[in-house]
């Protein structure tokens, strides 16, 4: 199937553009903005890993290496659309308007971490693998029923394709022809389990064939390829032409999470090699240099801005008020049941704290 699902690419490793790919549809400003967004995501990720090492946040889930896939796809959405991330997709949610402070709070085990600013439709990250796919189908279906042109974009990994909910989500979406884009980040591993043990196929895109769903495979480290593929899928969805399955082939440089040791299951020199070759930022840098659009002052300024933004968010995170007991009890039901109310009362009696 590899031949049927060639990896769509616009920008190659040298930062050279595929002349047939229609890059003229996008302005240089937009491309530079993509660079900014990826840089922002990367710096936040690097900072977060440091924070974890310093014990200022808990276990953290890295996405370094997957910025093109996440940022490029998120950039193809419009406000009002729905996003369904996993635990690894904060480059996507950040791009789509999530609050940096809240993303950091998430790694402090704070419930606010799952909540985007009001008016931005992002689901809290799904922990049970693949369980978010039916949600995305359902939310998209609601939009279709209302006759709006809003769409759902849902993230999931290569490992997620093995779960029953992957299948049920895609089948519902295709049966009801809902405006959903199923965006797979194939980073080659589900924790330690490589794609070859996860499935017998060489592509994930081909799994769309079982649903007569539009499907394609893109170079997930090429932000332009990702952006255009998702844009096309999103437009199709908006026009009522049904769902799409996209496979973005990518790689996580680091561990599965900061609690994972990748040397147990793979040779990390592969990651080092990729940093020099397929890296999404480097590639855009090369492109911009090729185009004469790269200025050191520009990136330096970006870095400074971003670092400031991160520092501010970090400060906000660290000064954020302690969690309130009410978070435990108040939202399980709209109004606590009597059993919960008794438990609150008992608990407060012991704690002697205000609720």
């Amino acid at each position, binding site marked *: 199937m590899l031949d049927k699902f060639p990896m769509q690419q616009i920008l190659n490793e040298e930062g050279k553009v595929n002349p047939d790919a229609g890059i003229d549809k996008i302005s240089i400003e937009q491309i530079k903005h993509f660079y900014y967004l990826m840089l922002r995501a990367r710096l936040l990720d690097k900072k977060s890993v440091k924070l974890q090492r310093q014990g200022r946040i808990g276990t953290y889930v890295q996405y370094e290496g997957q910025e093109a896939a996440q940022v490029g796809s998120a950039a193809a959405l419009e406000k009002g659309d729905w996003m369904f991330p996993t635990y690894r997709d904060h480059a996507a949610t950040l791009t789509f308007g999530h609050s940096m402070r809240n993303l950091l709070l998430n790694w402090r085990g704070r*419930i606010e971490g799952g909540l985007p600013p009001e008016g931005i439709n992002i689901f809290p990250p799904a922990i049970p693998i693949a369980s978010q796919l039916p949600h995305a189908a*359902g*939310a998209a279906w609601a939009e279709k029923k209302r006759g709006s042109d809003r769409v759902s974009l849902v993230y999931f990994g290569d490992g997620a394709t093995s779960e029953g*909910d992957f299948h049920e989500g895609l089948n519902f979406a295709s*049966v009801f022809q809902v405006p959903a884009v199923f965006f797979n980040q194939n980073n080659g591993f589900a924790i330690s389990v490589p794609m070859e043990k996860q499935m017998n196929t060489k592509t994930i895109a081909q799994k769309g064939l079982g649903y007569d769903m539009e499907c394609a495979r893109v170079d997930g480290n090429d932000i332009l390829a990702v952006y255009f593929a998702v844009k096309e899928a999103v437009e199709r969805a908006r026009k009522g032409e049904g769902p799409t399955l996209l496979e973005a082939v990518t790689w996580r440089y680091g561990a599965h999470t900061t609690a994972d040791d990748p040397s147990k299951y793979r040779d990390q020199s592969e990651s080092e090699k990729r940093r020099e070759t397929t890296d999404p930022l480097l590639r855009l840098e090369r492109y911009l240099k090729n185009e004469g659009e790269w200025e050191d002052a520009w990136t330096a300024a970006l870095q400074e801005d971003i670092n400031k933004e991160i520092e501010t968010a970090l400060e906000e995170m660290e000064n954020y008020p302690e969690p309130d007991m009410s978070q435990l009890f*108040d939202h*399980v*039901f709209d109004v606590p049941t009597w059993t919960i109310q008794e438990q609150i009362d008992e608990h407060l009696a012991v704690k002697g704290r205000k609720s």
Partner: protein
Amino acid sequence: MTTSVQMKKMTMIQGINDAMRTMLAEDENVLVMGQDVGVNGGVFRATEGLYEEFGKERIIDTPLAESGIIGTSIGLAVNGFKPIAEMQFFGFIYPAFNQIMTHATRIRQRSMGRYTAPIVIRAPYGAGVKAPEIHSDSVEALFTHMPGIKVVVPSNAYDAKGLLIESVNDPNPVLFLEPMRCYRSSRVEVPEEKYTIKLGKAAVRKEGEDISVFTWGAMTIETMKAVEQIEKEQNVSCEVIDLRTLYPMDKDTIAASVQKTGRALIVHEAPATGGVSGEVMSVINDTSFLYLRSPVERVCGFDIPVPVYSLENEYIPSPEKIKNAIQRSISF
């Protein structure tokens, strides 16, 4: 001026149908979805006529996938709709367990109230209709232990209509269990118009002085039979309480009754170990310890899978066993 409420004799399945029709007509965001609920009108005819009346956008025949049904219901619900999702039989809810346990019941808390999934999950349940294996499970205890969902079990048409309407109105997920044996076992007067019954309130089916018998669903049938018989045979007066909502349970009614009678018996169809009886017992323990004159009695299913139908009558708690338990309690 008096308003006269139009009444109509209904079976429980008609009451359920009527409740859905009422809510579909009232709120255009209400959807009915599940396997065979549309064109076919449901394998028990619970959704009969709804497809014709409300059309395919609102009465939806879904693919055969319980996790998909609940999972998409969550997406629909968070995005403004009110799905009434049918599991064709309660024993087929298991494939949807993950979606219910980790999402439907948690999305409200997880989002600090921003997102809610007020889904009603309907499911025919229990033994006694000669259904094949798995079709007869009564595992309500799996859900009373699950934080974030209410569990309702009507036993007659009047309760079914009022409780189902209330469940649809409830802003929380509700599991609405329909004892198959009650679907057509009785006809009662039901108002034609909309009315509701509060969740969490038990119904005293019969007042009595010597022992409180707690039960729900189809076991109300065996219990009433047993109580009628034993009251004829002996000088004993039994109070029968149909809990109707299993979570949250009606603590006050349970306590008041046990404090009056001093004795308690719990009857349910599910396996004894880990059944909802344990929770009723806890309520009694917590509220009425000093009133108890004898140990709380239980008459429940065995700790075995509900058997194939040639043996299901052996499985289902019999009036005889209920009578024996009352006897044991009284003569302790």
